Structures are given as C-alpha cells and as structure tokens.
C-alpha cells in the first residue's frame, strides 16, 4: 500500500507482540459502531490521480486565462521564483510547530526575522509570527483591547469588508462585546469624523481604522483621528494593505497601538482566498496580551545566540481556558514565504512595488472615468482599488465583459445596498498598460450597447 511501509510485514509485527489478528488491536471498540467499509471509490494510482486533477483544473480559468480586475482585498501579485525554492525545502514545510527549539533553529530564526520585518514596516515594537488571516486578526485585536481596557464596547467604521464585520460578530458574541459602527462619509468614502466624535466616550475599549479602507480610499485625516481616539483613552487599531507601506507612513507614525493586515500579498498566491496570512503587530507594553505564537531571541547554555517560542505561558497548551487565544496552528509557511519575499524585495523594492501599485490604480481609474456612463464614486484618494458606479445595470456589464475574456470589478451592493450598480475594481503591478487599455475598450463597448 502507498506510503504505508509496514503493510507488507504486519503479520510478523503482530506476532512480535503476541497477537495474531489486527482486529485484536481494536477489540475494545464496541462492534456496534464499526462499518464494513467506506462508501468511497478504491484508491487511484499517482498517474490516475494526476490525470483526474488535470481534468478538474481545466474547469477553472486562472489569471492567465482571463485578465481579472477584481478587488475586494485580494489581488494577484508577482511571486519571484526564489519563494518556491525556499518554501519547498522539506526541512521547512514538513516540520511541526517549533516546540523543540534545538531542532528548529532554522524556522525559529526565520520567524524572528519575520516579526522584525513586520514590526519595521508597521512602525510597531513587536509582532507575532502570524494569525489565520487579516479578517480574524481584527477580531483578535478587538478581544485584546477588551482584555487590556476591561471595557466592552468597540468602534468600527462602516467602510470595512462585510466579511470582517461578520467574523467580528462571531468572535465577540461569547464575551458579549458591543460593536458599534461609525458611518462613513458618502462623498469621500472616508470615515466620518463628526460621527466618530459623536460615538466616542470613555466606555470604548478601542477604535478600528482601515487604511486604505475596503473602498480603496486612503484615510488621510489620520492625525486628527488618532488624537480623537487617544484623547478618549481608547486603543487605536489600524488595518493596512501592507503593499501600500512602501510609500505610505507606518501606522506607528500616527500612534497606532495595534496594527493588523492581510499578508498574503507578500509572496503568497491568491489560492482562491487561502492560504492567507494574518499580520498582527503592537506596542511593547501589550506584550503579555498578544494572541498567538511569538518567537524570542535567547541564548543556549553556552551563551550562543539561539531562538525559541517565547511567552508560552499566554498560550492554550499551558494556560488552557485562560489563554489569550486558542491559536495553535497558525500560518507558518506563509509567514516564511513573506520573509523570503521581503528579503528579496528589500526596502527599495517595496517602495517601487508600492509606487507601481499606486500609479496603476490611478491610471486605471482615470481611464475608466474617461468613459461616459462610468464614474468614480468617492472623492477620497485611492490606492490600487476603487469603486466605480455605472448608469447601467452592473451585473449586465460584468457578464458582457466575461464574454470578452475579462473579469471586471466586484459588485458590492449585496453588502452595501447604498452602492447600487457599483463595482470595486482592483489592479496591481501584474497588469500591463495594454491590459488596462483592453479593459477600457471592452468597457466602452459594453456600456455603449
């Protein structure tokens, strides 16, 4: 049998331990609950498996078959070949969580480097070595604010993804945390400062701001927002698109306490939304409240530099019901891919990448706006995503684009009913100017009909 070497010698092994039949090893299980066999096909050979999967893969259209301009917090990015070389090292990808530090120095050091790089980018003191994704990272941040401030209300803006709101509702249900939503400015797409001032008081544990937000718009009133939040004694949680931070200030520069984000874009494929990488960074003073694994630098008994999992006393395998989070398995390999990616890119590369995404975002928006029946909804400055409103039925536009081999923007009125016939477009360094022109001329055709 495949991958089960002792199948062939099971009788002699049984005999070695004084047994005759494999069933004797299961004699303590009530007969009533056994099944004769699973209702599944027999196993396939590797060749048959490969052929079957080829057939299924053909039913997909990847970014290479269909140019996609869809936004929603995830876009294709270039992945240098170095990444696959490194994360395919079996010593990395077939390892478990590094409980035994002496046998895991390689992974531990790379995770220390990950935490260091993420802290630099975010302008924070410390980072953990990953959470599931950017969406659950917000929920963990809210739980952390509640632990620190011992207050049970948290403010979120309306201009974040519906998925974040839904996940947050589930994470805060048990601990009975009240989530209040601050309306966004319908003209600019940014958080409404008057609304924020109206909602904030000393009972709030923290306030979340997303920059750029779900509509792709930069929140540029960060200094004023930070003052309002800090003035009330609440914690300031900021969510970022890490790709933007090559040209945009770190949230630490506007006094964020906790920074979260989706790190997939640093060297990981879209993978249909997963694997993902939850970034979580914060100020040093909250060290003992941080959720998830953290790696620390220490010494071995001879004084040599060494790495290990630190602050394990916060974690479920030690603290059980009193842990800061239930996280065990996180997104280790995705964090390694990101570390490799950022080492390869360097600060110069990240700045260039950031700038390119910004410029592509503006080129595409300008070109689409030049068309008669399409206009940008919000006046705020955007990054590489933006919302376009159509005079005609957006569903029809998207279907027609699809026939031309183009995936258009994401229709969002299901989650934001006020944004009828609006599409969230996204673009990255992977889209050439020709791709952009192809979309624009297709849009021209389908909106003119």
């Amino acid at each position, binding site marked *: 049998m495949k991958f089960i070497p002792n199948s062939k010698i099971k009788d002699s092994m049984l005999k070695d331990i004084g047994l005759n039949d494999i069933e004797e090893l299961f004699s303590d299980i009530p007969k009533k609950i056994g099944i004769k*066999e*699973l209702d599944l096909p027999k196993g396939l050979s590797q060749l048959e498996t490969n052929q079957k999967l080829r057939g299924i893969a053909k039913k997909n259209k990847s970014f290479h078959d269909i140019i996609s301009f869809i936004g929603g917090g995830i876009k294709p990015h270039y992945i240098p070949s170095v990444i696959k070389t490194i994360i395919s090292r079996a010593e990395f990808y077939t390892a*478990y969580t590094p409980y035994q530090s002496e*046998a895991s120095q390689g992974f531990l050091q790379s995770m220390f480097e990950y935490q260091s790089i993420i802290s630099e980018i975010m302008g924070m003191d410390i980072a953990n070595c990953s959470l599931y994704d950017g969406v659950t990272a917000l929920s963990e941040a809210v739980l952390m604010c509640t632990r620190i401030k011992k207050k049970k209300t948290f403010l979120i803006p309306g201009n974040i993804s519906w998925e974040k709101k839904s996940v947050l509702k589930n994470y805060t249900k048990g601990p009975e945390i009240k989530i209040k939503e601050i309306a966004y400015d319908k003209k600019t797409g940014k958080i409404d400062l008057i609304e924020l001032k109206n909602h904030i008081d000393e009972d709030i544990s923290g306030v979340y701001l997303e920059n750029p937000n779900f509509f792709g718009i930069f929140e540029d009133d960060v200094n004023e927002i930070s003052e309002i939040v800090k003035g009330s004694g609440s914690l300031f949680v900021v969510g970022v698109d890490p790709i933007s931070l090559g040209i945009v200030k770190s949230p630490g520069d506007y006094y964020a306490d906790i920074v979260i984000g989706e790190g997939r874009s640093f060297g990981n494929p879209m993978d249909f939304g*997963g694997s993902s990488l939850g970034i979580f960074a914060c100020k040093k003073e909250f060290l003992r409240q941080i959720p998830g694994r953290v790696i620390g630098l220490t010494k071995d008994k001879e004084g040599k530099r060494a790495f290990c999992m630190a602050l394990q006393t916060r974690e479920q395998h030690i603290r059980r019901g009193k842990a800061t989070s239930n*996280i065990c398995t996180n997104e280790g390999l995705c964090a390694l891919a990101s570390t490799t990616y950022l080492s390869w890119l360097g600060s110069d590369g990240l700045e260039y990448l950031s700038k390119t995404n910004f410029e592509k975002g503006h080129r595409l928006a300008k070109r689409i706006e030049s068309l008669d029946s399409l206009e940008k909804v919000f006046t705020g400055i955007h990054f590489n995503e933006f919302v376009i409103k159509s005079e005609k039925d957006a569903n029809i536009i998207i279907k027609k684009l699809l026939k031309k081999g183009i995936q258009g923007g994401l229709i969002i009125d*299901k989650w934001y009913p006020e944004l009828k016939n609006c599409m969230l477009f996204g673009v990255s360094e992977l889209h050439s100017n020709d791709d952009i022109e192809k979309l624009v001329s297709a849009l021209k055709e389908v909106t003119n009909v």
Partner: protein
Amino acid sequence: MYRFANYNEPLINELVKSKKEKCKIPNLLPSSLKRKEKINIPNLDETQVVRHFHHLSQMNYGIDTGIYPLGSCTMKYNPKICEEIASWDDFTNIHPFQDESTIQGNLQIMFELERMLCEITGMDFFTLQPAAGAHGEFLGMLLTRAYHEFNRNFERNEVILPDTAHGTNPASVAMAGYKLVEISSTKNGTVDIDMLKHALSNKTACFMLTNPNTLGIFEDEILEISKLVHDAGALLYYDGANINAIIGRERPGDMGFDIVHLNLHKTFSTPHGGGGPGSGPVGVKINLEKFLPIPRICKNKNRFFFDYDVPDSIGKIKGFYGNFSVLLKAYIYIIMMGKDGLKETSEIAVLNSNYMKEKIINIGGYELPYKKLRKHEFVLSCNKLKQEKNIRAMDIAKRLLDYGFHPPTIYFPLIVKEALMIEPTESETKQELDRYINALVKIANEDPDVVRNSPNNTPVKRVDEVGATKNPILTWKMI
C-alpha cells in the same frame, strides 16, 4: 544518523547594513500619509537570500528528515504529488470573487471534499472554512450556541471536558464565552461516567471529547456517554485530532457525535508547514446544518455554486472559504488512498504504536500508566527515571535529538507524570521504529549527566527558554 548543519547564520539585517534614505513618493498621495524615510529592511542580492534561507533550512528537522512522533500531532509523510498539483497555476492563480463559471474546478474540489469527509466521519454536512483545528473547535462552540439559542435554551452556558482534553479545547470553550466544567478520568484513563452524570444538567451546552483520547485509549463506553449527554439536552462534540486511529473502520457519527472537527494537516497528510497553514473542517448532523457558515457550496445538475442565502447561518469565521490549497492536498490524498487505503492507514498506525509500546515497556525504564491496549498513540511516564536517576522527560527529549530523532510530545496529557506521548503514525518502517525504541532504551541506561547535558549534536545546545520569556526580545530592534 541525522546531523544538523551548524552555521552561525547572521540575521538578514546583519548581512548588509541598510542606509537611511529618503523615499520618492508620488505627488498625488496625501501629504499627511507620505512616508519620509525608507523602511529599515536590507537590500540584498538574490544569491544572499537563497544562501541565507538554505542555511536556515539545514538547521531544521522535518518529517522528510526522519521519524517525528509527536503525540496527537499525526506527523505522517506528505506525498509529493499533493504539493505539486496544489501549485498548478490553474488552482493557485484564482481570485476568490471570480465569476462562478470560471471557478467550477475549485468548487467541485470543495463540494466533493465535503461529501467525502461526511462519509469518512458519518456526519451529514461539512464546512471547510476553519483554518486550523482550534478554529474548528471555536466554530463548533459557535454552532452549539446557535443551536441552543434557536431552541430558546439560553441558560445552557457550561461545556464539560475530561481532564485529558487537548489545551485548545478549554481555550476554544472560553473564547466562545462558555464556562468550563472539567471532570477527572477513571483509573482506566477513560471518562468517569458517574462524574459525567453528576456534571450534566440543564445548564450543559455540550460535552467535548476526543476518541481515542489523548492517552491513546478508546472510550469504550461511548454509546452510554452519548445517551447521557443527549438525554440531558446537550450536544456531543468530537475533537478529531486523533481520528487517524479509527479512520475507515469506525466513525464519530455512528458513535452519536453531533459536531466533529478534523485536522486535514494531521489525518489527511497535508504538511504542517512549521505551524500552518492548516485546515479544520467541521461536520454536523442534519439538525445543525442551517447554522453552518456561509457561503455553502451547492450543486445544481452539473453546475456548482455558492449559496449565501442561509437565514439561520452564523455568518463567517474567516475571510473567503478556508485554506483552499490545504483542502486541495487533502482531496488528492483521499482519492489516492481510497476506502481500502484509509482503512489500512488506521490499522498500521495502531499496529506501529502498539508495537513500540510493547517493546519499550518490556525492556524497562519506562512505565505505562492506565490501560494497556492503545490506539494510534501511547503515553509513557518516566517518573521512575526521575526518582531514581534525576532524568526528566525534557532531558530524554533533548537526548533523542543527539540520536538524530525528533522527540515525542512531552508533559502532556497533564494526568501523566513526566509524560512522553508517542505517535509514530503509519508512515514509518519497522527499522525506524526499532531504532527509536533502541535509542529510548539506551538513554534510560546512560550516564544521567550525559542525558541532562544534552543535546550536543544540534546547532545550539540546550536553549534558555525561561530567559526568552523573562526578558523577551522579539525583534532585531529589541536586541
């Protein structure tokens, strides 16, 4: 014997000094947001990057290096074909919000995987959204709450757990806002039925159980347990971390469990990646289906589609649909193994474990508390070695590294003193098991000083973990 490489590998910021330079920022960017100085990460050459991470990899142990018998972690071999197929562009380069007509392949994988997991566990419906086992447990608790609230049972705020439960169980229960009620085990190492009866009440929301439990012992009174829990109006939850012991033979659904989570990165052979990405799908019986997260994956004739229109659903617990690449690898593994291969898996996993257990306890030095017959894992106590020679479980673990092996899980479950929790899985050859057994026996008879001062053949000697927590240095800025 396996030997680690031993580099004094610098941190990447020590490979080259980064200069403080100003950024060149597009004019259009609002001035309040303009970055002034470049980020402090080094600009390296590709050669330097590859060498650096290559060196690091050589100071790390994986299942491809050798046996990795961490109890309750099911470190089995990860077939290479799964890795290769899951990296095909046709699967990876797909945006989750693409039009449904362009993602039929991925939807088919997810739809069929859900059906296969239902068959394997005896459950009615599955969701693939949770990113890890603990995430699945947390979802299980949310579903429990949704179920009781739907039935207007608001007073059920307790979850019962045995003292052998995985650490994630109580942590997930607490995160979901439930009160923990822990019951101790019998002298056989199984659930104490009298204690359970006593703990159950109209306040009980759920009883969480791992079967076989973390001692590797099958809870043979499971049908009675199930009846008691259901008679009390509570739900029965199955922690699937240990399902490799019974796969293809027995199913939690047939034992009366209402909610099940699986760890695809354990039982279904997807790699652990040094701690993720994982996947912790959750299966339920039909009475809980309507609460499952959205979107559900449905099929109409030959077309697969997402259904977001589920009024009683709890909503979402993660962005998008779960860790798809992990789902795909597990799908490939299952169709390759088939019904025959899966059954062979559990049988040989249990045989390997009992083989090791018999050999070790017959040679001496280690004790096996509780009942003798074990499933896929067993837990030894080296308390006698501690008493007689002052050798602790930690010392044995570190000394195993000198013999080129990865140690077992140690100090868990908590009810065994100086515990060594060993799960060899079905992947190992008899020769590898014998070598491991010999190493354990040798260590028990070695000079205690040598054992206490181990490891010596690793890139670093015994690491000061207490220091890392007392004086935490988590980034290069903090050095």
